């Protein structure tokens, strides 16, 4: 890891993205005080990493967690609750209800499916009514139904005013639920910001016919022109004045066949960010 300055707003869902080996889990473990930085310092909720008072108001769901298999769902929650010095069985039962595991409370963990284990993991992460939750790949390896259940639970955390810090590879998932993201590559931040702002700069694809090449070139001056069998495809930045294009085509007796906005996807941003970092490294090495 290199110098890392993550800014996470209270009450938001923050996506922490990066390719395999980028340092996502390492960062989370460092923020939780599970592993130690070789130098430097870090703060969570304004307090130094490892401060036990912070551990009372944060929680963590590790990637592919393993729980004590001999325990039942209820026993597991009671065990984690006792680590906070509490023995509130009613609260544990309520949390199991919340994650739809009330009927399976007396089953042992080895009888739970992957999705159920993930849900009991989320239940344990709520035991201390946390302000901040760290979720490492919360939907990794789950089927679509389980995906949706976990996603709904995470969204409900935000509705309750909790801050959620998610590390994930599931870009479509992150795009759906995160307010802001940071993309990390090779131990440093490649992009960070509001998702809506980072995804600005989409494309607009306009298909026109009945116009000559000269006009088509003029229209696509800010973008790329592709010749089609019955016209032209203009690939241009989404900020282009759509009305002006329509007016120009009509006045030239041409036809606008289609207009398709191509929104920038998180996947595009991710690839751009990761390749960008890699390219800048090559450039640095070349210099």
């Amino acid at each position, binding site marked *: 890891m290199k110098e890392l300055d993550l800014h996470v707003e209270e009450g938001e869902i923050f996506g922490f993205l990066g390719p395999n080996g980028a340092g996502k889990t390492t960062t989370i*473990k460092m923020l*939780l*005080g*599970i*592993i*130690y930085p070789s130098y430097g310092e870090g703060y969570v909720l304004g307090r130094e990493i490892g401060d*036990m*008072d912070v*551990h*009372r108001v*944060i*929680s*963590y*769901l*590790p*990637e*592919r*967690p*393993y*729980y*004590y298999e*001999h*325990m039942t769902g209820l026993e597991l929650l009671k*065990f*984690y609750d*006792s*680590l*906070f*010095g509490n023995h509130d069985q009613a609260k544990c039962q309520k949390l199991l209800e919340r994650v739809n595991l009330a009927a399976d409370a007396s089953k042992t963990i080895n009888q739970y499916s992957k999705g159920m284990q993930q849900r009991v*993991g989320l239940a*344990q992460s709520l035991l*201390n009514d946390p302000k901040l939750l*760290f979720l490492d790949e919360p939907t990794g390896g789950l089927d679509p139904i389980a995906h949706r259940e976990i996603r709904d639970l995470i969204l409900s955390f935000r509705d309750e005013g909790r801050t959620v810090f998610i590390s994930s590879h599931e870009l479509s998932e992150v795009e759906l639920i995160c307010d802001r993201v940071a993309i990390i590559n090779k131990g440093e931040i490649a992009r960070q910001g509001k998702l809506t702002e980072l995804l600005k700069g989409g494309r607009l694809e306009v298909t026109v016919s009945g116009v000559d090449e000269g006009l088509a070139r003029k229209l696509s001056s800010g973008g790329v022109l592709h010749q089609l069998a019955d016209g032209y495809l203009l690939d241009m930045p989404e900020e282009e004045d759509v009305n002006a294009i329509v007016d120009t085509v009509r006045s030239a007796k041409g036809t606008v066949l289609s207009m398709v906005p191509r929104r920038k996807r998180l996947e595009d941003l991710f690839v751009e960010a990761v390749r960008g970092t890699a390219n800048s490294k090559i450039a640095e090495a070349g210099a």
Partner: protein
Amino acid sequence: MQAIWAIASSTVGEAVRRKVLLVILLIALLLLSIIPALSILSVRTETSATISTIFFVIRFTSALIAIILTIYMIPNEIERRTIYTILSKPVQRWQFLLGKYFGAVLSLAMMMAIMTVLALVMFYFNHRDAGKLADIARQPVLYLVEMSLLTAIAMFFSTFVAPLVNFFLSVGFWLVGTVLNPLYDSFAQNPQSQPAFKLMAKFILNVLPNFANYDVKNPILHPGVIIQNEASYYIKTVGYGFLYIAVLLILGIVIFDRREV
């Protein structure tokens, strides 16, 4: 304290479900149930042969359980990532380590208690000698202290070595401290020993734990043999064990506290 207790309880829950430990315990129980009946085949005095074999089975089985139970404890928690969820709660590493240690000792105590009770019952049915029962029960109590010390050794090593290496180290320490201890003692005492050899023997005797102290079967087997200042001997032996355990746990905590998990 609550966190330590919670971790210790979960450790007991896991330990009593470990099949390998249960198989070892079962074999020991089978042996203990037939030893008193087999003693009639012995050419030695019937009662002392029986008691001696009972002690051997309890001691050997307990040592095996203590080592196997402990060497995987920390590495498994790291490998399965259960430790991450625990350490993300307000639980310090030293609390985790102590919880694991006390859980292991509790599990061991339970298993030793089962073996001892069975041994006492079988002994009574076969020998009808109620007067010997208290004497026989005394030895496993000291063995428990011995095994707690052995558990602390295995726990200490588990904070920085792999289970297989730990197994050999722990077995080695136990063998040196039991079987070989009297041998090193004689080297250290013998004026004709080579100085270097004498020094090494003294070093081993002083630094490595002396498990031989916990074996008091001779006074139990042979009424003529007595321990001078018996109460003081027991206090010193138990105190020695607790002190050693404390030192090992502190060292283990120091290492584990800085270890990458």
